[in-house]
């Protein structure tokens, strides 16, 4: 299982990357390599050009602002796991990242790589959807932002043009003391989730004032379950409320394949959402 032949480029700046993307037909961008290299080794992709981003230092950063956290696309997953700033500002991310692969893959894997690969079960993709992340994309036409809900264009296909790359991701902050939980079901530790649920809660005077409920693994992209969110907002937290909200997740459309029937994924969607709601609520300041 050896990679096919290709031309290799290792630019050092973003403009160089954009220039290469403009000139090279049938090019693939290499970030952490944890998704692209297996595909190359198995010859599932046959690019003529591989554009390696690992020397573009400018894409690796973590920046705080009062209302958001901005993380460069080439930031390694291990940074997300260990960085104190991220843990304080956006605790859903490190909780999700612990489910992502293994130490070896997180040492190399990147935020941008995972988001652009858009595996339906990818934890970072689910977390980005839950957090209403805004993705910044840079191309020949300049810089533009994409709300994460618009980022998946199809199965494992992000809404970026061939001459663009994802350069950073902005995660709007939730207030201090917010409830958060990332719960997934995978066959083994570190496996891709069969299903995951990401929940964020805000409460005031005992009532839920804001809720984000995301279920991933059922369809091609994570689903923000607005029906569940609507059930929650304005009400006091209770087991019954959470069960009711979770049942909306059972009604999501789900894939049927050799690994699991649709009904099972829907069951997981409901169960994991309920468990995530309980976990998030326990962490949530009233």
């Amino acid at each position, binding site marked *: *299982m*050896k*990679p*096919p*032949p290709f031309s290799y480029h290792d630019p050092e700046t973003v403009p160089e990357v954009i220039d290469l993307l403009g000139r090279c037909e049938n090019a693939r961008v290499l970030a952490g390599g944890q998704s692209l290299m*297996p595909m190359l080794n*198995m*010859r599932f992709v046959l690019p003529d050009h591989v554009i390696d981003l690992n020397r573009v230092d400018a894409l690796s950063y973590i920046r705080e602002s009062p209302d958001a956290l901005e993380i460069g696309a080439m930031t390694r997953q291990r940074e997300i796991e260990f960085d104190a700033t991220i843990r304080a500002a956006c605790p859903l991310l490190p909780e999700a990242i612990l489910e992502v692969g293994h130490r070896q893959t997180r040492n190399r894997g990147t935020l941008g790589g995972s988001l652009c690969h858009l595996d339906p079960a990818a934890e970072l993709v689910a977390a980005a959807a839950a957090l209403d992340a805004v993705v910044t994309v840079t191309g020949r036409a300049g810089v533009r932002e994409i709300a994460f809900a618009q980022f998946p264009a199809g199965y494992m296909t992000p809404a970026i043009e061939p001459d663009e790359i994802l350069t950073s991701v902005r995660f709007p902050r939730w207030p201090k003391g917010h409830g958060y939980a990332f719960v997934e*079901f995978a*066959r*083994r*530790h*570190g*496996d*891709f989730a069969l299903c995951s649920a990401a929940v964020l809660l805000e409460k005031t005077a005992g009532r839920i004032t804001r809720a984000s409920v995301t279920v991933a693994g059922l369809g091609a992209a994570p689903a923000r379950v607005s029906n569940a969110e609507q059930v929650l907002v304005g009400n006091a937290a209770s087991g019954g409320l959470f069960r009711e909200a979770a049942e909306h997740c059972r009604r999501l459309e789900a894939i049927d394949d*050799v*690994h*699991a*029937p649709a*009904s*099972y994924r829907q*069951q*997981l969607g409901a*169960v*994991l959402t309920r468990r995530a709601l309980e976990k998030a609520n326990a962490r949530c300041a009233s």
Partner: protein
Amino acid sequence: MSGRVLGQSVRRREDAGLLLGKGRFVDDIRLPGMLEAAFVRSPHAHAAIERIERSAALALRGVHAIFTLADLLPHLVTERLVVGLPSKSYKQDRNRPALAYDEVVHVGEPIAIVVAENRYIAEDAAALVEVDFEPLPAVADCRAALESDAPRVHRNAPHNLLAEFAMAYGDVDRAFAGAPHVFRESLKQHRGGSHSIECRGAVAVHDVLEDRLTLWSSTQMPHAAHRLLCDMLGRDENRVRVIAPDLGGGFGPKLVFYPEDVVTALAAMLLGRPVKWIEDRREHFVATTQERDQYWDVEIAVDREARILGIRGNLIHDHGAYTARGVNLPHNAAETVPLQYEVPAYRMNVQVALTSKVPVSPVRGAGHPQGTFVIERLLDRVARELGLDRAEVRRRNLIPASSMPYTTQLKARGGMPVVLDSGDYPACQAEILERAGWADFPGRQQAARAEGRYVGIGFANYCKGTGRGPFESATVRIAPSGKVHVYSGAAAMGQGTRTMLAQVVAEQLGGAVENVTVTVSDSAAVPMGLGGSNSRQTVLAGSSAHLAAVAVRKKALKIASHLLEADESELEVERDRVRVRSTHDRSVTLGQIARSVAGTAGYALPPGVTPGLEATENLVIDDMAHANGAAVVEVEVDIETGHVKILRFVGLHDCGRILNPMLVEGQVLGGTAHGIGNALYEWMGYDENAQPVTTNYGEYLLVTATEMPHVENYYRESPSPLNPLGVKGVGECGVVPVAAAVASAVEDALSPFGVRITQAPIFPAQLVALIEEARARGQKNT
């Protein structure tokens, strides 16, 4: 049962090199001028080959040759690999061709070999070879394969029944006719592949000067490979040598001789350059033999006291598209069902079906896990129906120790009766249940249920024939250097064979394990050998080495008594010398003894002795030494997700006399992990067109350190009377009871719902569905 080194956890001599990263596995072998190969393989489960076009591939820079069967035929005595273990049950011969030429019958079947400067280029070229296929209908399911209108796996075959046999004794019909209770189960079992972390591989080189072909092959059976190469290439025994270098695991499928082995060898001969072929993981999924599906439809008849009156049923076994080993797997499985219990009448009708998939051959356990699953599920059923404790049902039926050796009415594949040589099955069961807290569990279960947790306990006994004969060769020689050299036809695959042989021989010759060198895995080191399989090497190679060492010891003492002018009874062998026991004042080294019989021109040898200080033994043991044991498993089932967590795993194993406790524990643990994989994780999936759908490690799940519970193992030693060491094999024991015990535990955990587990592996989605169905049937009783 301890000797001076036997019974001790002697550290492995294999370790240092491996730990340093200096192991020599087949892919580590590099020879000057070596080329690398890749195979063009069938993407279809069944197709006719119309045309093979190589010109574009040959034009690629760095490509040296592309061979199809047409190129190789002039150099082959026979185009087919005739490897099947003999059996009267075959209805057709389906031997693999060295390369497919006009028909392919499974995804992954090799069609051509591409030889290039390196593997990268070889793969580039393989992708450019154009093969015109005419797709033909494929058969994915072994039951469907036996329907009269099923497409033929081989287009010119009359049907897909490869073999058929019945294993039977006693008057089964009468037993059932009069029985107070008859229970029926339909069981589906699936086991997957070997997945040794090292795939297969071979390096072939032809020495023109000596006209000798050497093949390094990641094989468990160098002598078998040697034989086949000699036969297929028309070369005599001295013109071929097969060496197994360090093996990164075997587990069964590496004992098979494959098309890639003979084709790589031929390529090296035709090109006059060494050729290396290393299997990659995707190839392992589609081109290395594996176990797969068995469908059992069985009935058990018992009396009012739950004593077995008879067992009967049908087994349909998936053989794959060719015979790569034989029908031993279904034979073992059918033999195992009644093996450990008193079963007065038995009949299992076995049909072995061809399917459009890679051939099936034994993987660690070799049919015994499946037979065990059947009997243990049946006994659980009896217990449930009669309202008896599961352990009690077994107690009433286990063959008692007083009956040993117990001649069953079963016949082994070679035709001899199956005799249980030793073992105390009831005592093993009693011990493990005590250690596992079986009697207390209902209380713990109640407490858990009160918390809304579904925990269960399961239990399975097992018994397995080990040490399959007829023999393994061993030569022990003391050299003038003083070193004790051991040569054996045994083949190592990671289990510490060399350490075992060194211990066995050192026990007789001074106790200094480090003074013993061991050579195995080489067809040139000993003229005869069988190699590794069936948990046989400690039993057979160990026994032959033991007897040879005893003979050498006897001769050494005789010579030493002459040299030291002392009576033999006054002498002892201590480390590297023979000395007078009481005084230690006179001694002669083993090397000096060897020198004294090495011969000096013109001088007589010591009186009454023959030249040399060596002995060769090929001890014949036809009967198998039966190891036995049990597993008790506690699980918790998350009824909402179907996840099964193993809370506790207790094993008990009687593998006869234990020569090295550390190595035995390692074998059992490895087998246990494999068994957990078979119970809960490993599924080699195919779609309805016999296309494999699990071809990478994201889809095919092996147990990792986080899924593995901490296993508590206990041991008993019932020495086997069948060999001088009293040993039994242990390499496969760990895997045999696991799926049965886990199924039993899951069923117990879900008993409030009345869920029945009738298959292995069990997956979370299936459990959730079973719970749903049971709820719909309204069977929840708390």
